């Protein structure tokens, strides 16, 4: 789950990373109360979860006299069609130089990777594309408590040594907060020291509970409903509903729909142990999506009990046509139950998807 900038900065601050003085406001009038703390120059930053926020008009400069007016302007905007509900009002830093630093999970090595660049504030992907040597990277063993000094020297190159403790603290954030990504862009030097001018922190969804996060805000309401039942669920914009077990098989079913020039309405992986109850909830959930007139159920596995699945589909009793492909134990009983209630059960996923296409058209 992605944290908002001010939430990430709160975390950084707990780990000893200097952040600019600032306050979160929810109405333009609130900014006045904070001006004495913030000084003459004020930066107003929309707290919205969108990439390229600055370019999209989500960050505005102001001073003591214009702060309220500028905040009102920002609250009235939509940043990439996301309304602005919270603004982080910050002191303007006397920036000398900007850098980039991030720590992420490196899939190839299966270890934390630290990226550093001598220029900040820009998109790191673009920077790396233009000049590969501009971005330095080191891989750190996850068993180490700190980034070892020799790796830090390699990372920093000629950049000032005083960045090192901040980067090491970011590594502690990464480890301590179960982060998938911890990023400071830009990391700035000023006459008063080093600051994290911006902050990005993405927490591993599998670690939200132990990080004390009860609700995953990245999910929509229906997605959260799905999560309650243990489904992974994504909404798309077609008319063919899809229910499968296992992420790969379900994705493959969506691909097959596209292969036959159809459009899937969703991705729903019921997970392991598809029993009557779960299948019923899954079918009902997909049927509740507007525009779905047919649902493909594709279940495969040694322990899937086909009679249970059949009962779940029948119990759901939804309006859209349900076409079933399943293999597992008690296949014959399942087929019979479905046939008695007028549902079709087909031999292969190709056949099931083709049959669904006919209904969708």
């Amino acid at each position, binding site marked *: 789950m992605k944290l908002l900038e001010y939430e990430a900065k709160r975390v950084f601050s707990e780990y000893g990373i200097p952040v600019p003085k600032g306050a979160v406001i929810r109405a333009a009038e609130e900014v006045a109360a904070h001006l004495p703390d913030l000084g003459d120059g004020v930066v107003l930053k929309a707290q919205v979860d969108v990439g390229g926020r600055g370019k999209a008009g989500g960050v505005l400069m102001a001073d003591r006299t214009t702060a309220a007016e500028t905040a009102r302007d920002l609250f009235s905007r939509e940043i990439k069609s996301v309304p602005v509900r919270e603004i982080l009002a910050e002191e303007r830093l006397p920036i000398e130089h900007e850098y980039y630093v991030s720590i992420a*999970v490196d*899939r*190839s090595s*299966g*270890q*934390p990777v630290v990226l550093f660049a001598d220029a900040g504030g820009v998109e790191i*992907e673009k920077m790396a594309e233009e000049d590969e040597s501009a971005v330095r990277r080191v891989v750190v*063993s*996850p*068993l180490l408590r700190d980034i070892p000094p020799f790796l830090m020297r390699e990372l920093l190159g000629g950049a000032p040594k005083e960045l090192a403790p901040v980067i090491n603290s970011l590594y502690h954030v990464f*480890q301590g907060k*179960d982060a*998938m990504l911890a990023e400071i862009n830009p990391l700035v030097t000023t006459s008063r020291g080093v600051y994290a001018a911006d902050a990005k922190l993405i927490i*591993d*969804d*599998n*670690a939200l509970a*132990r990080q004390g996060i009860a609700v995953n805000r990245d999910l929509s309401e229906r997605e959260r409903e799905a999560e309650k039942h243990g489904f*992974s669920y*994504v909404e*798309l914009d077609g008319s063919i509903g899809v229910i*499968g*077990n*296992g*992420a*790969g*098989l*379900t*994705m*493959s079913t*969506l*691909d*097959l*729909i*596209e*292969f036959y020039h159809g459009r*899937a309405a969703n*991705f729903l*992986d019921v997970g*392991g142990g598809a029993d009557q109850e779960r299948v019923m909830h899954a079918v009902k959930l997909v049927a509740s999506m507007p525009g779905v007139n047919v649902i493909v159920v594709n*279940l*495969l*596995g*040694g*322990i899937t009990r086909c009679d249970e699945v059949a009962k779940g589909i029948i119990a759901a009793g939804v309006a859209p046509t349900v076409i079933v492909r399943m*293999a*597992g134990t008690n296949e014959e009983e399942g087929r019979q139950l479905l046939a008695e209630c007028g549902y079709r059960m087909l031999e*292969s*996923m*190709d056949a099931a998807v083709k049959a669904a296409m006919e209904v969708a058209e």
Partner: protein
Amino acid sequence: MIYGDKDLGVIVQNITGKQGTFHTELMNAYAREVGGRGVVAGTAPGKGGREVHGVPVYNTVKEALREHDATASVIFVPGGAAGDAIMEAAHAGIELAVVITEHIPVHDVMSAIAYAKLHDCTVIGPNCPGLLSPGECKLGIMPAHLARRGNVGVVSRSGTLTYEVVDELTRAGIGQSTVVGIGGDPVIGQTFVDVLARFEEDPQTKAVVVIGEVGGNLEEEGVRSTDLPVVTYIAGVSAPPEKRMGHAGAIIEGGEGDARSKVRRLRDQNIPVASRPSEIPGLIHEVI
């Protein structure tokens, strides 16, 4: 076959859990069928002294290995404790840990795999169905009845999609040497490169099916690393960017690893890519 044969002695960690108990019985049913050793012991802290389907239970891996000759462990320990279970296995001398558990925090996985490496323990998974060498051994949860012994290796990031492909192969009369599910998480132990290197050393394996997913570029790394004939299939070509399709690994990040460009890059290297699972047997016939 790779990773182990009939003589492989196996333990199950969290054997008293629902999944552990159920699959211990299935693994041992398979071992009886092929005349293998199967699961010789299990562990569950605080439950030592019990039996699960006739298999003795110990409190720790160390205790189990004191009484039994085993080199592999299948881990069904739930999310938050699974990283610890991998390290316990490695520390006690297990050489091959197959981790079925899903939803393990990625930091736990990174640490546990790094620790296992220090103890020369090979990790398969997590979030994987394990491995099956038809006629030899089964470690994990793959439905054995779909498979048949032969000379095509299968390596995959998926679970049920692997069963689909194995079923297609078997129906087409193509048997398998070993089927390995390496798991769908962003960080995994054995990668495509590792498994393909083992297949290359295996005289039984003549060709390999590589089943990939959207996300990362590990399939390409793997395919480039081997001289064996390879047929690939990549799930998720219809997946929209930034949407997580179940597997944590199956998310397109920053333009890297989307399935379409992955398929294009593979085809540019003259690697056959199936557009759907049912095309795989035909492509295998073409390469061997």
